[in-house]
């Protein structure tokens, strides 16, 4: 069924009895030409673009849980392409462009909202750094505006501009940045992929990767063996575990990232705002909750929850930037498992095992990357060569000295 204003009207008039499940819940077949492990945003997007743009035969997405249980359903929904380094800028800009056309591409309302991302700065040095970043963006044809304090204050009057320690001096604005309804992205891609014939298999955990003479030939799962011509790993926080099934050791650590939502309030925060003197960012959901977060907890974890010091740190950042936040009650907080790479940038590449492909290292910022990650991973799997915007995301860049270290913090995942 195609979704449209007409279909909504028709269903409204007939008591909403005609809606069908958005995708087929498939039973595993004995063999597929391509098996994607992981039904998060990246796995589903990969399957969709593979099915739409290439002729690779039968495709399955194998998910150990239900769709949306991973980080795709836990993130704070921010999209942007305000990066600095050449290896990253074209990739994230492709992603932002794909977000702009996504809802038409997949016929699904993902609530893409380009409300603008404002990165505050608090010192001369930080302004210079943001001016440089904005220039790098513009050189790549990406929108960026450096706002001084007066201009910023006109748009966002409610921040603590006179804060004694961290006075707000202005912001770098990417007006095309914003938010997208995160779980709608999973559902929308799943529905669009299933429509093109992709089997989406939930509650099916991959427990082994079968190889014959250095060639991957299939996956052992909790629902039996599934043969595969090619296998793509897109399991984010579980990357090291799944890669270990093929004997691989990767430049990745899993870390905890938390997020927070306040009680619903009337429309207040119209944009995405990030504090520059600590790590804190905030936006407001359509339901009214203030959605905010900050740094990863900083130690290895697979627990999908964090600890109190980080909660305190995030809230302190929020109070320094926007003191009125102290009046709102926190109603929920949760955590997810991040696949932190050693340089803070992702990997989309072949592996030393033939027919086994890797998509990982998304750190705390892989949501915004979802469409481009899908396009580039599909390209890699179908064409056996990297997509032109992902050439830097090689697995051997660590050993070869071509790391893409946006933060310049070295091989210390908890600092990226």
């Amino acid at each position, binding site marked *: 069924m195609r979704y449209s204003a007409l279909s909504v009207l028709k269903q409204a008039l007939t008591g909403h009895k005609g809606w069908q499940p958005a995708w087929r819940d498939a039973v595993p077949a004995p063999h597929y030409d391509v098996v994607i492990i992981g039904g998060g945003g990246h796995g589903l997007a990969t399957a969709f673009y593979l099915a739409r743009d290439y002729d690779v035969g039968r495709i399955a997405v194998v998910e150990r849980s239900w769709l949306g249980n991973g980080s795709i359903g836990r993130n704070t929904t921010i999209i942007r392409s305000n990066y600095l380094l050449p290896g990253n800028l074209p990739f994230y800009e492709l992603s932002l462009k794909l977000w702009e056309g996504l809802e038409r591409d997949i016929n699904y309302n993902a609530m893409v909202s380009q409300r603008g991302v404002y990165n505050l700065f608090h010192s001369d040095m930080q302004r210079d750094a943001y001016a440089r970043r904005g220039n790098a963006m513009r050189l790549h044809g990406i929108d960026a505006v450096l706002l001084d304090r007066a201009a910023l204050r006109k748009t966002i009057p409610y921040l603590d501009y006179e804060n004694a320690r961290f006075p707000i001096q202005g912001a770098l604005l990417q007006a095309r940045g914003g938010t997208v309804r995160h779980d709608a992205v999973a559902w929308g891609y799943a529905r669009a992929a299933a429509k093109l014939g992709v089997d989406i298999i939930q509650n099916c955990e991959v427990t082994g990767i079968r190889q014959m003479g250095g060639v991957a030939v299939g996956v052992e799962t909790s629902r039996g063996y599934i043969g595969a011509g090619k296998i793509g790993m897109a399991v984010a926080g579980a990357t090291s575990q799944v890669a270990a099934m093929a004997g691989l050791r990767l*430049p990745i650590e899993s870390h905890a990232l938390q997020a927070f939502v306040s009680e619903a309030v009337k429309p207040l925060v119209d944009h995405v705002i990030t504090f520059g003197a600590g790590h804190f960012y905030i936006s407001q959901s359509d339901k009214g909750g203030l959605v905010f977060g900050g740094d990863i907890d900083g130690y290895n974890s697979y627990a999908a929850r964090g600890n109190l010091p980080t909660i305190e740190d995030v809230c302190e950042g929020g109070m320094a930037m926007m003191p009125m936040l102290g009046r709102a009650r926190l109603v929920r907080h949760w955590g997810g498992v991040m696949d932190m790479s050693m340089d803070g940038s992702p990997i989309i590449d072949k592996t030393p095992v033939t027919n086994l492909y890797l998509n990982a290292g998304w750190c705390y910022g892989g949501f915004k990357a979802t469409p481009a990650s899908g396009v580039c991973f599909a390209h890699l799997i179908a064409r056996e060569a990297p997509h032109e915007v992902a050439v830097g995301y090689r697995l051997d860049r660590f050993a070869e000295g071509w790391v893409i270290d946006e933060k310049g913090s070295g091989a210390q995942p908890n600092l990226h």
Partner: protein
Amino acid sequence: MRLQCPHCGPRGLAEFTYHGDATVQRPVDRGAGSSAAWADYVYLRDNKAGVHQEYWYHQAGCHAWLVVTRHMRSHEVMAVRAAMVRA
């Protein structure tokens, strides 16, 4: 999470700084050996979803480096020892 510092007793997490996997071994060749061994040491990690040995620095306390044994799924701290004391 609280860590039982062998010098200071049980202390809150905010006093400590984390430094990752304590089982990786720095090559002893002072740079003369293969770069593969160095790439391995600097970048590759087991990152298992089980028991993990890791360095923590008691930054706001006694300034000792500690080796903490902790479970990655439950955050349960199973042991803490001074890094100077070889296991």
